[in-house]
């Protein structure tokens, strides 16, 4: 049985149920008399006051090293200036280091607060003992404990030995939100100084004594095999040390990356490309179209959509398509590995350290305890790095090379070997009664399975799919949602927001089609459909319709929905909106102002976002993720498309896979609502509404519906 993405992320690659991270040392004492206070695996304080906070999720730009450290530091009342971040390696203390599903802050919130609060209580207790005063008269403040009556002060460093001898409180008292002084503010990225000086180390920056660089040739078509190659020609290239074979590939080892890549070019490898060698994008779409003829597995059903549609006064239906997508992370695939003496050490820019550890152990036939994974900074993840493929490749090469090796993928390797996010087709139909009320809705999504998470399984748990269709927030009496997932002949994988972008694009655009048909304003129609019972529950899901209506109204107000968008000479102007709830958590609404020229060229002038992600941890991070998600969504809406020719990804560079650039930036306005309760994620949430808001704005400007991405100017003339 394969593992669905959500299961994969929530359980971790080891299958350990670790939704909340345990603090195993609770109920014991830290080490009595120690020179270092380490009450849990999440933090330690040295006698000089240096405070190490441990982060067990991968930093790939979402700011997790900063936000998780803020949670710890808040409850610890640490002096932010005295803290040092340490990246955890997977092991018994850190059983779930996987990073995905925008889950890091949400899943770490409670355990990290408890860890920080427990340490703070122990330090306060230590000071009270030292001064022989009641601990209720002492308080923690900026890395020190202060006695209220006398004003006496002891730094955390001075209290290390005393605090270490104390019992660890089982239920430390957490702060009230009103007392937060760090959480909820804008805190600059903790890695910022390293990044702007070039000292921040990504995977590709790993340098291990004695290491060689490797470029690996693999068959460009999935399922092909090696026929022959000329090692001598590669070895004739200056700087090349050796040529070795691994399962499925040939590795050229060299003194530098350039020599490795040049040596690989000289190999003259001949492949038997196998049965997929003639595969094209058209073949993939015809597989999707054939599958879409079936109703799909029913994943959500209320009322009787079929009967309601048949009885409707007005019916409409449409098919939406979203393209195959590359991740195009700026740091290409790479990993450094050393295999010696029955153990293995890996330095990898990975979102799946647990998985890398487990699969490397399996590959080498050693225990996972013998594998150490160092998680480096990551130059862009976006779901690509949930796979362990490039890390395992480095392990395989290092095993044969018998010395440390860094495998580096070229840019074209990175496109060719991407785990492409599959194209999707979404079929929708709607029925309106005689008064124009929306009474029936069907939504069926058809796409390829994500091979990154394992083999295809027709009986796999649909796992809330289609995301965005299954958890449709609107109050519609008769609804039927279907899910058609088919086996992929190409490597496929998760991509920022995974299934949401395709399904929210289709849902939110089709809802605008309904509004036009019913003669209603798109905002008014949505607000009416969100006026139903809230929170609305079905299955294990809870939908906060009232909350979504609040952010939708806020976005519309800030964007000036009531007034027409500004006219632009020689261009057609329009405004569009979309909203969504991500996995029952973050509520988001976006409004786009666009104009379309005579040749169909689209300019996006402004995107207004309103978001409620629960408790905000780092406001700068929340805003940054909105800004990032909008740009990502615009690249998706306007530019990105992977095509398959001769069984392989046809794109090889940024020249044929364009992404948004600075001069195409719209004005961005972000309104993060201070939310209640625990925080929800932000990494993926701002992506799905961008394309439908833009497409709806284009329809408002031109009267032309956009039902396929990327948006093509030729369709808008």
């Amino acid at each position, binding site marked *: 049985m394969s593992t669905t993405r959500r299961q994969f992320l929530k359980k971790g690659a080891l299958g350990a149920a670790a939704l909340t991270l345990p603090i195993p040392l609770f109920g014991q004492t830290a080490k009595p008399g120690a020179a270092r206070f380490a009450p849990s695996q999440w933090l330690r304080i040295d006698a000089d006051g240096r405070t190490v906070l441990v982060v067990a999720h991968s930093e*790939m*730009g*979402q700011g997790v090293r900063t936000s998780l450290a803020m949670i710890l530091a808040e409850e610890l009342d640490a002096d932010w200036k005295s803290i040092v971040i340490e990246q955890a390696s997977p092991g018994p203390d850190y059983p779930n280091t996987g990073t995905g599903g925008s889950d890091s802050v949400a899943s770490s919130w409670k355990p990290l607060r408890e860890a920080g609060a427990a340490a703070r209580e122990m330090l306060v207790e230590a000071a009270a003992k030292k001064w022989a005063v009641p601990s209720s008269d002492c308080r923690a403040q900026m890395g020190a404990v202060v006695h209220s009556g006398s004003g006496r002060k002891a730094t955390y460093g001075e209290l290390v030995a005393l605090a270490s001898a104390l019992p660890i409180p089982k239920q430390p008292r957490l702060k009230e939100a009103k007392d937060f002084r760090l959480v909820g503010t*804008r805190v*600059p*990225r903790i*890695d*910022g*100084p390293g*990044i*702007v*000086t*070039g*000292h*921040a*180390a*990504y995977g*590709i*920056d790993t*340098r291990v004594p004695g290491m060689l*660089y490797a470029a690996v040739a693999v068959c460009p078509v999935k399922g092909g095999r090696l026929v022959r190659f000329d090692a001598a020609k590669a070895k004739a*290239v*200056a*700087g090349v040390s050796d040529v070795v074979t691994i399962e499925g590939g040939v590795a050229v080892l060299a*003194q*530098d*990356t*350039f*020599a490795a890549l*040049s040596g690989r070019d000289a190999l003259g490898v001949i492949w038997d490309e196998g049965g997929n060698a003639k595969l094209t994008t058209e073949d993939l779409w015809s597989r999707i179209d054939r599958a879409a003829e079936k109703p799909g597995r029913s994943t959500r059903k209320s009322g009787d959509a079929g009967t309601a549609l048949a009885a409707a006064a007005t019916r409409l239906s449409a098919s939406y398509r979203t393209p195959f997508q590359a991740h*195009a*992370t*700026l*740091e*290409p695939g790479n990993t450094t590995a050393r295999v010696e003496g029955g153990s293995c050490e890996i330095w990898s820019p990975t979102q799946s350290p647990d998985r890398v550890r487990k699969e490397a152990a399996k590959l080498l036939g050693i225990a996972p305890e013998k594998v150490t994974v160092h998680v480096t*900074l990551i*130059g*862009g*993840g*976006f779901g690509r790095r949930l796979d362990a493929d490039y890390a395992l490749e480095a392990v395989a090469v290092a095993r044969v090379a018998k010395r440390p090796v860094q495998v580096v993928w*070229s*840019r074209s390797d990175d496109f060719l070997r991407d785990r492409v996010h599959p194209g999707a087709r979404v079929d929708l139909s709607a029925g309106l009664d005689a008064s124009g009320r929306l009474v029936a809705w069907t939504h069926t999504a058809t796409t390829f399975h994500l091979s990154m998470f394992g083999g295809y399984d027709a009986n796999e748990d649909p796992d809330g799919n289609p995301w965005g269709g299954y958890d449709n927030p609107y109050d519609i009496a008769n609804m039927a949602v279907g899910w058609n997932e088919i086996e992929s002949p190409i490597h496929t994988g998760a991509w920022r927001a995974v299934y949401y972008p395709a399904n929210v694009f289709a849902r939110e655009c089709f809802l605008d089609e309904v509004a036009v048909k019913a003669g209603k304003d798109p905002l008014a129609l949505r607000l009416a459909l969100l006026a139903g019972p809230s929170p609305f529950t079905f299955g294990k899901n809870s939908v906060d319709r009232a909350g979504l209506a609040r952010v939708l109204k806020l976005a519309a107000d800030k964007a000036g929905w009531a007034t027409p968008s500004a006219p632009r000479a020689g261009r057609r102007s329009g405004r569009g909106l979309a909203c969504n709830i991500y996995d029952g958590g973050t509520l988001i609404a976006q409004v786009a102002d666009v104009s379309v020229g005579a040749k169909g060229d689209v300019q996006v002038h402004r995107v207004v976002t309103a978001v409620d992600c629960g408790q905000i941890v780092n406001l*700068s991070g929340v805003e*940054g993720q909105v*800004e*990032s*998600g909008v*740009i*990502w969504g615009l690249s998706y809406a306007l530019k990105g498309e992977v095509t398959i020719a001769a069984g392989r990804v046809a794109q090889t*560079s*940024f*020249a044929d896979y364009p*992404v*948004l*650039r*600075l*001069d*195409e*930036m719209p004005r*961005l306005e972000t309104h993060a609502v201070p939310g209640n309760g625990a925080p929800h994620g932000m990494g993926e949430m701002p992506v799905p509404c961008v394309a439908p808001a833009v497409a709806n704005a284009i329809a408002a400007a031109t009267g032309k519906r956009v039902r396929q991405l990327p948006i093509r100017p030729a369709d808008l003339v």
Partner: protein
Amino acid sequence: MASFSITVNGRAQAVEAGNPEMPLLWVLRDTLGLTGTKYGCGAGACGACTVHVDGQAMRSCQVSIQAAAGRRITTIEGLSEDGRHPCQLAWLAEDVAQCGYCQPGMIMTTAALSAGKKPAGQEQIEAALSAHICRCGTYGRMQRAVGRIVAGGKS
């Protein structure tokens, strides 16, 4: 194996290279260990590998060691001694970086254009940065950072 003399971050160095066409990028990263200069595409399309060659912003993946010989090279590590170059400070003040991988290139382009007797204006710097790629989409904050630099720290 031929030897080439280059000055990197103020230090004259002799670099051995088996192939005179070896891009400066890999000399910096693999031979000299200056990994702040990033590899993004190897084709001059993304700008992540931008360094200064005799004060001009250039993509080090497009400059061979042969062509770099005798030149003054400045990398992100050598932009300032203390990390307090106006561009670095402006970047930090606007909390620009996300994954951060493209940022050394962005900063080097901005630093080259904003230096000298006739520093470039906002529009000119933005035009140059538009030939770079940031996959995280930090462009908005980058524009604000450039605004600070152009204003000479007065904003």
